């Protein structure tokens, strides 16, 4: 006789997500998200300088998570998604 156990997991089937197609060229609106880790702003400052020199056609907007220790609030995610074409998120430390 076989031995049966009960599934201890949430039994959810993970959704397979497609990676958004990568464009040939970076244009449009770009969100910079600082997750509030120390020196995340330093990283983003340098990156912004570099990108603005090389890619004058993009428009960068800076966003900040209230705390790195929790997921971004829904409102912030909606705002970033609504107003931007790309996101760069900085971890740092």
């Amino acid at each position: 006789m076989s031995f049966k156990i009960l599934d201890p997991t949430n039994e959810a089937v993970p959704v397979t997500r497609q990676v958004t197609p990568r464009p040939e060229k970076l244009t449009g609106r770009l969100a910079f998200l600082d997750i509030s880790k120390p020196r995340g702003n330093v990283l983003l400052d340098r990156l912004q300088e570099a990108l603005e020199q090389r890619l004058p056609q993009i428009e960068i907007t800076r966003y900040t998570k209230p705390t790195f220790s929790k997921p971004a609030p829904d409102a912030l995610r909606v705002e970033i998604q609504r107003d931007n074409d790309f996101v760069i998120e900085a971890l740092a430390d």
Partner: protein
Amino acid sequence: MSEDTTTYDSTSGGALEASGDDITAQLAAPSFKLSNLHGDTVTRTGDRPSVLCFIKEDCPTCIAVLPVLSALHNSLAEHIDVYLIGQTADGNQRMTEQYDLPFSLLDDSTLHVSYASNIEIVPTLMVTEADNQISDALVGFQRDEWQTLLQNVAGRLGTAGPTLDWDRLPLWRPGCGSLSVDPTHADRLRAEAEDSPIRARNIEIGQLDDPFEFMFDQGFTDGLPVVPPTAERVLRMLAGTRREAQEVVAVMPPNMGEVTVEKAAINAVMAGCKPEYLPVVLALVEAICTDDFNIHGVMATTMGASPVAVVNGPIRERIGMNMGIGALGQGNRANATIGRAVRLIVRNVGGATPGGTERSTLGSPLKFTMCFAEWEERSNWDPLHVERGFEREDSVVTVWAMSSGPSLIIDQESLDGDQLAGTMGKTMETIFNHKAYSHTNTLLVIPPEHVDTFARSGYTKADIRERIQTVTRRDIQDLVADETAGVGIKPELAEKMAAGAPGLQLSKFAKPEDVHIVVAGSEAGKFTGCFHGWVAGPKGSIPVSRKIEEV
């Protein structure tokens, strides 16, 4: 045949002597597909009159009625459906061979049909009508009753009754307990029944697979073996709470898995919990799945925080928790398994696994389990849960996100409260690092000998907190990063802060309440345990208390 399987005790007497009406109301006429001894499937749908009898081989009364069943088969089986059902496959075979039975016993060795029919005693004889109502039933054997019943059936069918020398049969024999109510099988049958509270997916483990190895392979464990969560064990675990099995206790990040009471019970079985621990596990799950506690961040942080739980109130004694010698260590089942169960739920239902969304750089032994009880009676202080607004009689669990500990604060010399709390403060200055001020919180586990030192000075918990804040107070300039160590407040920020508040000083903790205090440990030893917090407050984690269900 073993005598001790025969039910002679007074508890079964009621059923044996109950009137026919009582028995018919108690029983249920089953629909089934069962195999007979030839391997043929026999189906009963319940839309024709029938006679059924349940027996088992190791019941002397069942053996005694075999001649009756043979006569019943020979005289009535042509006129009415007769189902003679045995409860063990081997027993059916042996009875047939030994007593040369003229009928082929049906195999109910899974006991599903016996269970569904509410059979408590064998033999049970029942007569059913075309509408599947039970019109007559007998349990055990009383000769005149069996004779009357079978003659009545024969009379209604217009045929002769069983040909049998009734005088050779005993006058009366009590029945035996049905295997379907035997504790060895009852939990499994309840789990497999249609009205079972179990909804989780069954996972079948191959005959050649070792269940323990299988569960390691599936990633269900914390790296230590777990108890296989069979339906029987989970049912027994569910008896530890009054809550419905499918009630959602919490939605747990990162995968937002629904922690039902059943899923919590499954993981509690795996962790090694007793059913009476389940209410603590459920309260803890509720506590960590709050926005205040932030289990998502606690698991995801590279710093490696973990839930540390303290239990207060009467349940400590009831479930045998350790608050004395070695309370924070191994050896006590409740302490060890409650924390482990919650951690397994975080892994299996929440989906936080090391290397996945659990990103701790080093990990920590705290991540296996950390739960203990406060020795409330060993000090004159209000215990933790009373400080936090609960009644002393309430059972409560409180949980913190702690990044390390217990590290020891060793003080075998101080003779009064000022000195001892001074040692504590100065030792804790280096939590995180020596310049990390107002960042975190702490849980101090004070052992009896240190409690006594404080008691001699009339020291309250508030006094300890105040003293710690006083001895750790430092000028803001002392907390600035320097050549010795790169950590600390940035000079420009320190200047800005000082400009607004000349002579500004900071204490180690943002507020005295960030020093949490409980009593535990053995009578001997002047070592206070100090847990170091994580990011304290709304930006990280706030300790949460939950009242534990009274069962």
